[in-house]
Every structure is written in C-alpha cells, then in structure tokens.
C-alpha cells in the first residue's frame, strides 16, 4: 500500500476517525489483533498529545499523521507545537493492596502510556515542532498459523 497521510483539525471528535483509519491500515499491514489494539491506543494517545500541545501553544494548526506499511507499520504524528512535559500523579491507593497502603504514583500522562505499551517509539523535537513515531513489525500480534 505504501504511505497514507492525514491532516486533522485539533478537534477531539476527530481522534475516533484517526483510530478507524489506523485500524484499517494496520490490518492491511498484516498486524494481529493484539498489535491493532496497540495501534489504536498509541495513535489515540499521540493525537491527544498533539491536541494538548497545540492547545497549550494557543495554535489552531492541524496535526498531521503519516502511515507507512512498507515494512510492518510505521505511524508518525507531527505537530508544530512542543509536546507537554510528563508527570506522575499521586492518587490514593486502595487500602486492600499490600504494597501501597496510602498513595500510589500512577503514570497518567500519555507519553508514558505510549512508551509502556509500544516497544519501538521515537520522540523528536525541533524548531519546527515535534513528532512521535511508533513502529510495529509485520505479523506481530497475529495468531500463529496452524
């Protein structure tokens, strides 16, 4: 298939559209169900990051996405704004849990979730903005052939 490019307004309602496109491209790239779940979540979080970045910068510029299934699947999300700083959030822990009786620090920021979920992630920042690239190998997450 090669490359597919999208330019999307920074409207949260459009993130679902991007997810649908991502799923279709990932399926055409031969990814399995587990990897497709990662694609959906990774792309959704990356779009959320881009929206947060553009919002913080007061920019109404669109974000852009590039899908490339030449070897596996590569998805790059670009924004002209800088990505937000990551943060850990203190949360009251469930008293029933053994190791954190009072407070747990959870990774609620989008980039931490992306990096926790996906093995191959690159984040780049420069004077022209930021980009986040995620890669999956072909056949990853697919059920083994009988």
């Amino acid at each position, binding site marked *: 298939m090669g490359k597919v490019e999208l330019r999307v307004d920074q409207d949260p309602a459009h993130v679902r559209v991007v997810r649908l496109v991502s799923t279709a491209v990932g399926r055409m790239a031969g990814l399995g169900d587990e990897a497709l779940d990662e694609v959906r979540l990774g792309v*959704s979080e990356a779009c959320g990051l881009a929206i947060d970045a553009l919002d913080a910068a007061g920019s109404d510029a669109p974000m852009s996405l590039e899908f490339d299934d030449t070897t596996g699947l590569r998805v790059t999300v670009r924004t002209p704004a800088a990505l937000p700083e990551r943060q850990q959030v203190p*949360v*009251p822990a*469930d008293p029933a849990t053994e190791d954190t009786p009072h407070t747990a620090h959870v990774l609620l920021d989008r980039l931490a979730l992306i990096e*926790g979920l996906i093995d191959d992630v690159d984040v780049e920042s420069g004077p022209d903005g930021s980009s986040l690239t995620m890669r999956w190998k072909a056949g990853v997450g697919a059920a083994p052939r009988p």
Partner: protein
Amino acid sequence: MDLSLDTREQAGCTVIEVGGEIDVYTAPKLRECIVDLVNRGNYHLVVDMEDVEFLDSTGLGVLVGGLKRVRAHDGSLRLVCTQERLLKIFRITGLTKVFAIFDTVDTAVAEQPA
C-alpha cells in the same frame, strides 16, 4: 460506537454500566455522570466496564478523578473488568494498585461497606 452510560442501584451501590469508547472526546460525559452522582449523594460507585470497547488515558484520568471525589466522602469506586486489553492499560499505568477490580458486578457490590 459512541459512549453509552446507564446507572442503576444495587444493594446500596450505584452501578454505572459503561459501553463503547472512552476517549478524549467522550470521557467528559463519563466525568459529568460521576460528578452528578456524587453531588446527589451517591458515594459508593461500581463502574461496569465489560462493554467498553476502547479506553485511553483521558478515561483513566476520569476514573481517578471519580475515585478522589468519592474518597473525599469516605466512599468507594470499584471497577468491573475482565477484558485483558483494558487490564493491560491499568497495569502499565500502575492503577491496579489504586483500583479494586472485580470480575462481576455482584462480587464488586458484595465488597461494598454497609
């Protein structure tokens, strides 16, 4: 699929049945639902996520916000979830230490304080 929300009472708890996709666009609806319930004095909540098809960090943030809200009233917010793709997200973020997660609504409700 858009987000669907249904609430009902069961054994002194308020069960929120959530269906569809919880993302940056739909999560505010879930937040409004939880805030509204707490404002009306419902402090023991069970969020049934068995029909949730997608969950992102915005949705997680809403659940954490709901937990903080009910804890301020000595309440509880428990989750019902058996879907591995969602449980994986809770594990990555460390939220399995924060939420009590049950297999069924009945077991979640049974754990509620009287």
